[in-house]
């Protein structure tokens, strides 16, 4: 059984570990100018991260493949993207996505 004291050690350790992962690269990198190829690579990291997240969350929700036209995650992604492209509003697109997800899930049982 985990004691209260162990849990506090875990809490403190997790705070330290996660801050270190996030802060060390930022403070090291901003002091030096990175080589041009590395800068170019980093400039494509955001779009690649987004695509990786979207693909796995939509086609493997909960960690299992769901490649069918009855996948509410996949179906709801289309109106979400459409609303964002039309309105440029993240909040609007997120809400539209949640509503269409509920609708698709209800329709498909």
């Amino acid at each position, binding site marked *: 059984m985990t004691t209260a004291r162990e849990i506090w050690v875990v809490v403190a350790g997790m705070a330290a570990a996660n801050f270190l992962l996030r802060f060390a690269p930022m403070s090291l990198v901003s002091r030096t100018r990175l080589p041009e190829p590395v800068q170019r690579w980093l400039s494509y*990291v*955001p779009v690649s991260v987004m*695509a990786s997240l979207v693909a796995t969350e939509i086609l493997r929700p909960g960690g299992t493949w769901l490649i069918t036209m009855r996948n509410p995650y996949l179906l709801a992604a289309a109106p979400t993207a459409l609303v964002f492209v039309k309105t440029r509003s993240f909040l609007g697109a997120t809400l539209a996505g949640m509503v269409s997800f509920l609708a698709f899930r209800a329709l498909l049982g």
Partner: protein
Amino acid sequence: MSVPAAEAPPAPASKRARFARGLRLGLPILLGYAPVGLTFGILARKSGFSAFQAIACSATALAGAGQFIALSVLSAGGGVPAVLMATAVVNLRYVLFSAALAQSLPREPRILKPVLAFTLTDETFAVNTTDARGCTLDVVSATGVGAIAWLGWVGGTALGALAAGAIVDPSRFGAEFAMPAMFTALLAGQIETRTHAAAAVIAAAVALASSALLSGSWGMIAGATLGAALAAWWLR
């Protein structure tokens, strides 16, 4: 958002207005985090955390998947080193995000840099890099994004930890699609050129293929690093 790139450095707005703008930009993150934080609060109580410990963990780590894996390692009888190793591996992608974000950080004010680092997550990274669009990031606005994300995560955890059990099922409101919806919108906003689209396709394919084989967030890390590398060095 739709400001042309050349004007991206913020117009001379007050700090308060820039912070408020960040809060608005980050509002979808709050929507996505609250239900997941709530789940963490409930599970943490079941794993032997007190309500205060659960809230303190969310408030100081702000680590999403890293916190869930910690619970499962603890429940499986893993010691403190195993827990810390697991949370670090799951959140290794922050190293990548942190280095990428550093490219669009202004020199000053230095004092906000640790705050930005502390609130760096998949979602705040996505919102902030989209907002900066390859130019200099407005760090005051980015602090607002971080603040509201933190509020959603910690508030959700508090709700779950204090009211564990007596809660309506958040999936009734479509909460499990809040995060995918936001990522979809962010992805749509990030695709500016053909090379960006190619990076996205490669990243998605690699992430899917490897997430079927690898555990944790390794699939995503593989997709992100390879997709960006091929787009940057091979396709341009």
